[in-house]
């Protein structure tokens, strides 16, 4: 029954990757922005939660509620003052600016917090597990996966049930025509990045409780997150979740053959999916 366990763990891992990727997917889907600083922004979120938790003595799960609005503001400001100026047909300027941002955030955090490993401590829940008979699953990984599903569900509701979501989709379809509807694309983008940062804060919570983090660790999972977004298909949030799960499963299966194959398997799954479907699993019809 080991393989069931392998699949279950891979699935849960996919949840973590999807959580990393959800914010990226949102921003990528709406404005074709490849945010190379996403990983570092997640780490920034983790430090923010840590600082709040230390200062107030709050549990990280509570501290995240205070961190989220701050991160929203940061995302909004970033988009308004920086990223909006470089959006366009050319993918290079945003790529460069976000990479520059990544370097700045990493080194800024390094000067502020040193390179010491940090971790968010959530208490006893970290080691708790649920015995489901065939498999034993950690409470935190299950919570992570559930949060990923919840985030994707919530974002989907936002996308398909609200006026803001309508504006998101319209702007993403055709920003010029959206202006003719009285939509300010730049404001819409700022909202989107703000929301993406809230999602990043949630990702930070789970990353920070799962393993140690330090200022340099952000980019490590960025590639997996991008893979999840691309496998899922541009603009499809459920696709991103599926993409995360594909990577997670591939890694888990690869690892069960030999840990040497773990990360390689994730990459190979990505290449395989794109060879068969160059636009991902669930591409939008009109791209």
């Amino acid at each position, binding site marked *: 029954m*080991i393989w069931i*366990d*392998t699949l279950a*763990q*891979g699935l849960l*891992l996919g949840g*973590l*990757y999807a959580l990393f990727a959800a914010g990226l997917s949102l921003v990528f889907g709406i404005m074709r922005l490849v945010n190379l600083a996403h990983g570092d922004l997640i780490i920034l979120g983790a430090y923010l939660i840590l600082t709040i938790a230390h200062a107030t003595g709050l549990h990280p799960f509570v501290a995240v509620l205070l961190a989220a609005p701050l991160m929203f503001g940061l995302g909004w400001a970033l988009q308004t003052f920086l990223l909006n100026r470089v959006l366009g047909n050319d993918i290079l300027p945003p790529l460069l600016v976000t990479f520059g941002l990544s370097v700045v955030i990493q080194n800024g955090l*390094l000067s502020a917090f*040193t*390179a*010491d*490993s*940090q*971790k968010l*401590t959530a*208490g*006893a829940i*970290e*080691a*708790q*597990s649920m*015995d489901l008979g065939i498999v*034993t*699953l*950690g*409470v*935190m*990984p299950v919570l992570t996966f559930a949060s990923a599903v919840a985030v994707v569900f919530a974002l989907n509701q936002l996308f398909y049930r609200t006026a803001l979501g309508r504006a998101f989709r319209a702007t993403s379809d055709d920003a010029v025509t959206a202006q003719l509807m009285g939509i300010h694309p730049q404001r819409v983008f700022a909202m989107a990045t703000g929301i993406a940062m809230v999602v990043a804060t949630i990702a930070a919570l789970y990353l920070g409780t*799962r*393993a*140690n*983090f*330090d200022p*340099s*660790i952000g980019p*490590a*999972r960025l590639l997996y997150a991008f893979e999840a977004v691309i496998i899922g298909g541009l603009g499809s949030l459920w696709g991103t979740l599926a993409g995360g799960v594909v990577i*997670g499963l591939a*890694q*888990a299966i690869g*690892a*069960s053959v*030999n*840990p*040497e194959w*773990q*990360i390689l398997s994730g990459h190979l799954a990505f290449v395989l999916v794109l060879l068969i479907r160059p636009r991902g699993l669930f591409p939008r019809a009109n791209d």
Partner: protein
Amino acid sequence: QTKSLKIGYVSPQTGPLSAFSAADSFMVEKFLAAAPGLGLDVEVIVKDSQSNPNRAAEVAKELISRDEVNLILVASTPETTNPVCSIAEQEEIPVISTVAPWQPWFIGQQGNPGDPASWQEFDYVYHFFWGLEDNISTFMNMWNSVSTNKQVAALWPNDGDGNAWASPDVGMPPALAAQGYALTDPGRYQNLTDDFSAQINAFKQAGCEIMTGIPIPPDFTTFWTQAKQQGFNPKLVSVAKALLFPESVAALGDLGHNLTAEVWWSPNHPFKSSLTGESAADLAMAFEASAKRQWTMPVGFVHALFEVAADAIKRTDDPTDSAALAAAIGSTNIDSVVGKIQWGRDNVPEFARKNISKTPLVGGQWRKQADGSFDLVIVENANAPNIPLGGTLETLS
């Protein structure tokens, strides 16, 4: 008459390895303060490897050709020491190196690590630290003192340290086999892996009661929380590298209690500095006062680097003569704050004897204090009985 020369010092002051370098500036100042008394007119040029091996090689080249240093000191992890030593050996500049187990240092610098026949000695680079065999025997001494089923779980990454530990020739597998331990080694994983379920499954299948490995701190945290979640509860966990620094252990919270680790230096080590006469405890206290943080193991070794340097320079007539200085380093025999340092002793295999001097290693256990901080208690000293025990080994369950 005073001898004047330039010394380069390379260490990872920024980046992920920077925790190793917390004592750097403190020790450099100490050395510079002591130098005039020893008749030395030295300049120390400090270079940051940024935790990046390419950058380490670059700064080594800079030290040699721009700053024209006469001696290079280098510390902390094979990622820093090896590029610097490789270049210095090519350039024929003497190096004193430390804080990397000797196998990844020596074998890792060989062209073909897999072919012992091809290994060559070095003429200019000298390293002092302990080796895998010390770490292994320290760990096994701890394990032997507890009754277990002798099933050992191993978590070894695909990096310099992990490959050395896993080596069927010089690593842990033959030592385990010799003492009747059975090993479960699922294979080399990449650093910064997010999921260890495959390994945990294998360990559970084999019913391992002992867990060992040499992961980096974030990976151990991921592994150990997952192990707890998935019901893998070994009696003893002896992990190298990941548990060096109190911060990494503190990050584990309750899960950090009673984990065991190798201890290369502590304030309780009964050694004194040959440079300043301070005891290990004095040095640790001085560091804690100046840096406002808990002592760490590299503190003693960074200090010892300068002890060896000062001693070798003193014994060289013309320290700007590379070959003479290298020879003086090779004939070092001092009692330093990390123990005896002397190259060419028979506690190192023939092929590496010239370039390696071993320092003592003992075993320690992290104990969570009432205030949430962690203390490292020495619980095993069979290889170095002169280092006093601070308590007895406790099992996890």
